[in-house]
């Protein structure tokens, strides 16, 4: 993995909600195979940044460029979320958004939607191609569930899972879309320290085994510090710092705005 390509490049991103400027002139880049953390106080605009990148919001200004590891670059502005996903970027949500009355496996299977083709006729006739595709989808989904450790829950309804498991299911669902860039919005929220450690390991495995780049929003500093290669810090919609975890952790502005004085040991 030498000569790392930039998979995502965000330039001068700004987003206004009515009079409120939630993001102003944010620059962001992620290299192939990196784990980048995006941190900042509540309301700094992290989630908004995700929403702009994934096409849920249409940014007021700025450019978003996605470049696949194969080197194909696409400007994302103005694309619909499903188009963005098709290009190879997937996300999870801060407030879990599963399909509650579908089973765990079906949730993951839905993720494969944009990578499969069978249509209505195929579904009705169930020809060989459709059947094969279906088997592929089921197997792949099952593998992903195994990866996140939910293989004992395949037939449970998503809504019946415990909170932490739901977060992991969201990750599996996102992975099912075959992304090369994964966006995680506070994956450790609501998890106890033990679960958080397991999650850290999961994220690392995803990066290593699936060869993925990851952009992560997280408030759990222990997690951020231990797994990210680089950290970007937002405050009031502006980037105030960028660097390795150690650099950022020592940055007085970041300490003042976000971490607080005795942050690092908390």
């Amino acid at each position, binding site marked *: 993995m030498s000569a790392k390509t930039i998979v995502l490049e965000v330039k001068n991103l700004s987003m206004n909600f009515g009079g409120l400027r939630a993001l102003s002139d944010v620059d962001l880049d992620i290299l192939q195979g990196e784990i980048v953390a995006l941190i900042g106080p509540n309301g700094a605009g992290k989630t908004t940044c995700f*929403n702009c990148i994934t096409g849920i919001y249409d940014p007021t200004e700025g450019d978003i460029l996605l470049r696949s590891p194969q080197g194909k670059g696409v400007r994302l502005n103005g694309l619909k979320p499903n188009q963005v996903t098709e290009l190879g970027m997937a996300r999870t*949500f801060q407030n879990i958004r599963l399909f509650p009355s579908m089973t765990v496996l079906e949730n993951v299977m839905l993720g494969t939607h944009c990578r499969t083709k069978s249509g209505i006729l195929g579904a009705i006739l169930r020809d060989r191609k459709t059947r094969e595709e279906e088997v592929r989808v089921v197997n792949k989904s099952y593998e992903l569930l195994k990866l996140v450790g939910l293989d004992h829950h395949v037939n449970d309804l998503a809504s019946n899972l415990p909170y932490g498991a739901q977060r992991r299911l969201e990750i599996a669902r996102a992975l099912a879309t075959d992304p090369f860039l994964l966006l995680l919005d506070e994956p450790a929220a609501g998890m106890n320290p033990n679960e958080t450690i397991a999650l850290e390991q999961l994220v690392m495995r995803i990066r290593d085994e699936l060869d993925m780049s990851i952009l992560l929003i997280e408030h759990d500093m222990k997690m951020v510090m231990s797994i990210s290669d680089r950290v970007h810090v937002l405050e009031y919609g502006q980037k105030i710092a960028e660097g390795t975890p150690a650099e950022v952790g020592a940055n007085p502005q970041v300490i003042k705005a976000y971490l607080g004085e005795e942050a690092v040991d908390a």
Partner: protein
Amino acid sequence: MEYFLELFFGGLTRGSIYALIALGYTMVYGIIELINFAHGEIYMIGAFTGLIVAGVLTAMGFPALAILAVALVVAVVYCSAYGYTMEKIAYKPLRGANRLSPLISAIGMSIFLQNYVLLAQTPNFLPFPNLIGEFEFMEDYAHILGSANLVIILVTAAAMVALTLFIKYTRMGRAMRATAQNRKMAMLLGVNVDAVISLTFIIGSSLAAIGGVLIACHTGQINITIGFIAGIKAFTAAVLGGVGSIPGAMLGALVLGFTESFATGYISSDYEDVFAFGLLVLILIFRPSGLLGKAPTQKV
């Protein structure tokens, strides 16, 4: 110009009639997100109650104005009671169920109430006495605006203002808004949610009762089916204005009334309902939450 004015007031009357019913619709929708198809039936029951009161009092020889007052009061009392009971029987046990279940329950309730009145009274059309005598000062304008129309317009406007103030400034009004947005949290803050919902039905039904009596005075006849079409139109009006919004219901109803009136006047009444519904579709395509409705704030 005169023709335009005449059509204008025709539209205003129609709009006010729709508004009076639409207000009740929109309130109930606002709080439990239920399209209460039986609301039109409450309106119909209001008209029938009014007729019965009028019949009894006429037989006893009361003057028209007194009859109107008593009829309104009794209709309000009874419609409130029906609204309250209906909520307890058909909707309350369904809280927390699938959103469509209460809708079907409401359709069932509508069929039930219609046939209940049919059996208890009659399937025929009945004449409704005009309890609102012609005002003298209106004499010269009678060709534009009848006094019953004037009363309807004024009452509707008053009802809207009163309701808006009530919801905005009273404690119960605040409780209603809170309940509408998050029932569980409202409970956690000490709001008696059951009472709030009951009250909503009572207020909505009272408005329907007033509407029933006044509109019957205007049309001069009632029958068990009047609730259905009025209900559909009123609901259309409520959605047009932004369902859940009180000024919206009023505005939507007026827009609907004017559309129908002018479409009839300048084009043809053959298609007046087509124009009404066509307008609805158009407006919702360009303003998906209705004229005054707020787009739901969805933070992802």
